[in-house]
C-alpha cells in the first residue's frame, strides 16, 4: 500500500444499477474511498466514473481488479502516475452581512470563484480547482461562517490525445470499438 491518493477512472455501461454494483463492491470489500464522481462520457451509452482511493488504508490494486470484474465496467485505469488534469467543483454557502460582503467578494475573486446567489445574509460561491485550492478557499471562508458545502469530488483525465479508449494511431473512439480497446492483451499480467 502506498500513502498516495490514487485516482481511478472508469468507463462503465450506462445501465440501471451499475453505480450500485460499484459502491456495493467498495463497501463489502471494505475499501476506503475519498470521493466518487459519476457523469456522462464521450461515448453514448457509457458513463464515466472517477474514484479517489486512499492508498494508505486500501490496497489500490485490489480495488482496481475487483471493480474491473464487475460486468458493465468496461475499463478501469489507475491514472495516478500519469500526467493528469484533475479538478473539483464546490459550492459554498457562507454567511455574509453588509460589513463582510465585500471582503468575501474579494476572496472569491482571488480564487477565481463565482458568486451564484446573494441574499441579505448569505452568498453562494462556486469554486473550481484541485482539492488543495478548494480546501484553502473553504478554510478561509470558515472565518465568515460556512453554512453549507457541496463538493463534486475529483474528476480527472490524462493529458494528450491518448484516452482510456484511445491508442496511438486510432481515430475518435466509437462505441463499437470499446470492447477491443478495453482488452488489455498487450499488457503483461500484473500482480
Amino acid at each position, binding site marked *: 500500500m502506498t500513502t498516495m491518493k490514487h485516482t481511478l477512472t472508469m468507463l462503465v455501461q450506462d445501465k440501471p*444499477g451499475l453505480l450500485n454494483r460499484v459502491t456495493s463492491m467498495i463497501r463489502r470489500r471494505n475499501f476506503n474511498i475519498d470521493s466518487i464522481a459519476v457523469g456522462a462520457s464521450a461515448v453514448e451509452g457509457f458513463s464515466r466514473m472517477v474514484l479517489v482511493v486512499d492508498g494508505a488504508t486500501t490496497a489500490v490494486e*485490489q480495488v482496481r481488479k475487483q471493480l474491473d*470484474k464487475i460486468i458493465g*465496467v468496461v475499463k478501469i485505469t489507475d491514472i495516478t502516475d500519469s500526467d493528469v488534469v484533475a479538478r473539483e467543483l464546490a459550492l459554498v454557502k457562507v454567511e455574509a452581512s453588509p460589513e463582510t460582503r465585500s471582503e468575501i467578494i474579494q476572496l472569491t475573486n482571488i480564487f477565481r470563484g463565482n458568486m451564484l446567489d446573494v441574499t441579505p445574509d448569505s452568498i453562494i460561491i462556486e469554486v473550481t480547482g484541485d482539492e488543495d485550492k478548494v480546501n484553502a478557499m473553504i478554510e478561509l471562508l470558515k472565518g465568515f461562517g460556512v453554512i453549507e458545502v457541496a463538493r463534486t469530488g475529483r474528476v480527472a483525465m490524462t493529458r494528450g490525445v491518448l484516452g482510456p479508449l484511445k491508442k496511438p494511431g486510432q481515430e475518435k473512439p466509437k462505441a463499437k470499438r*470499446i470492447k477491443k480497446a478495453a482488452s488489455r*492483451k498487450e499488457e*503483461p*499480467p500484473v500482480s
Partner: protein
Amino acid sequence: MKLKGAQILCESLIREGVEVIFGFPGGAVLPLYDTLPQYPKLRHILVRHEQGAAHAADGYARATGKAGVCFATSGPGATNLVTGIANAHLDSVPMVAVTGQVARPFIGKDAFQEIDITGITVPITKHNYLVTKADDLAAIVKEAFYLAQTGRPGPVLIDIPKDVFDEQANFTYPTRVDIPGYEPRIEGHPLQIKKAAKLINEAKWPVILTGRGVIISRAYAELKELAEKAQIPVIHTLLGISSFPGSHVLSLGMLGMHGAACANLAIDEADLIIAIGMRFDDRATANVSRFATRAQIIHIDIDPAEIGKNVKTVVPIVGDARTVLSALNKHVEARSRVEWIRRIEELRRLHPSTQIRETDELLPQYVIRQIFEVTEGKATIVTGVGQNQMWAAQYYCYDRPNSFISSGGLGTMGFELPAAIGVKVGRPDETVWMVAGDGGFQMTVQELATMVQENLAVKMAIMNNGYLGMVRQWQQLFYGRRYVATPLLGPDFVKLADAYGIPAVRVVSKTEVIPAIRRAMDTPGPFLIDFRIEPEENVYPMVAPGAAIAEIMEAPPCEQAPLGGK
C-alpha cells in the same frame, strides 16, 4: 417468430443445452410453469424448499460442468435461493437462477411477495438481470449462460416480472454475445510462463498446490504431466480434492487447517509453490503472514483479482489452468529431485495423518474408509460441512477426477442432501454417496421427498454423534469444554427414512459397518445408514486458528505437543 416471454425463456434454455431444472413454483412464476409442459425436453424436478433447488443445481453443475438451473418464485422463493447462490458464488460454480418478480406496474410498490432480489444478490452473483421487456429476454439468457460458464464461473440470476412471461415478443436466439469489457484471459502471458518455467527448473524443493480451478478447466492430464515430469509433489485444497489422483506417489494430500501434516510441513519447507486454480483461502493457508515463508509463489488463476489478494506472488499468470499448464509443460525440464522426494517420503512416514487407531469403538474415520473399500473408490462423495466433511476428505482416496463434491468457501451445512440429488441427476450411472452430519442433515432433510419422487439412488451415510461436532470440537479445544448449544437431539433417522419410504439401517458397532454399506449398495434406489459414531471424536490433524501452517496438532493436545513451527 412471436412467442410469449415464458416460451422465449424455455426455448432459450433448450438452446443452451439445459436438460434439468430444479425449482419450486409460486404466484409470480405461474405463467412460466404453465408453459413448461410444452417443452418436454426440460425436465423439472420439484424440490421441497428453494434452497434445495439452488444446492441441487450447484451439485448438478459440479458433477457435469454445465451450468445448473433453478427456478423460484418472487419474494420468499427468491430469498430462499440466496444461500445456495452464495454457495455457488464462493465455489465458482456455474449456475443460472431464474426468479419470478411481481408484474412491472407493481415493482417498487412493496407488492405481495415483492423483494428486490437483484439488489440482494449483487454481492453474491457474477452478474444479475432484471428483465424489463420480453424483447430483451433471449439476449439476457444468452449472456447469463455465457457469463456463468466462462472465465471464472459463477452464478447469474435473472429476475423476470410476471407480466413479462406473458408478453409477446419476436424470438430469435442470438448467436453471439457482446459484453464490453468482459474478456476472460485464457492464454497465459508467454513471458510469465517462461519465467515460471525457469523458477520451476531451478527450484530444489517445489510443491504444487491445486484448487478447484484445475477441476473446472479439466487440467488433470496437464497437471499430472507437470508433476511427473518435474517430480514435484502435489498438495490440494479441500475443493482441489480429486484434481490429482489421491493414490499417486506424488500426492501429499490436503493442506490447511485439517490438512495432512506432511502436506503442511512440505509447504513450510518448500522453496517454490506453484499454485494452480486456488485462492489461498484462510482455511488453506492458516496464519497467512507465516505461510510458506521460505517459498516463492507462482500463482496461476483465471481471475486476476485473486492474484496478490492474500499472498505475495513472484510470478502471476492469469489464464485458464489447462491452457497455461500445457504451455508451461513445454518449458519445464525433467528432473528427478531425489533429495526432495526422499524428504517428502520421510515426512509422510513420520506423520501418517490418516492412520485409524485400533479400537472397537465405531469411529467415523473407519466408516469412511469402509465406504471407500466397498465402493472400490469409484463413488462420487458429496459431503456436508464440518467434521463429516473433513473425515470424508481425509479417509476416502479420490483417484477419479472430480469425485468429491463439497461446500468449501461458504461452508453451508445442509448442502449435502440437495447437492447429492443434483449430482445423481447429473451422473445417473454412477454411485453417489452422501456423507452428512446429524446437524447438517436436519437442515435440508425435507429433500428426502424429492429424492424419492425422482427415484434417485443416493446412498446416505449420517455420521451421527448427537453433536454439532465441529463446533463442539472448537468448544472442547478453545472454549474450556463448554458445550453450549451443540448437544443435538435428532429424530430416529431410520424411522424418518421409513416415513419417506427409504430403506434404512442403524449401525451402532464396528462389525455392522461393512454389511450395512454392502446392503446400501445392493439395495436399488436410495438407502440411508445412521452411523452412531463415537460422540466426541475429533478431526485431526488440526492447525489452531491463528497458528502457522506447520504448527500442527496431530492428536489431542494433551497427548502430543505441537510440532514443527519456528
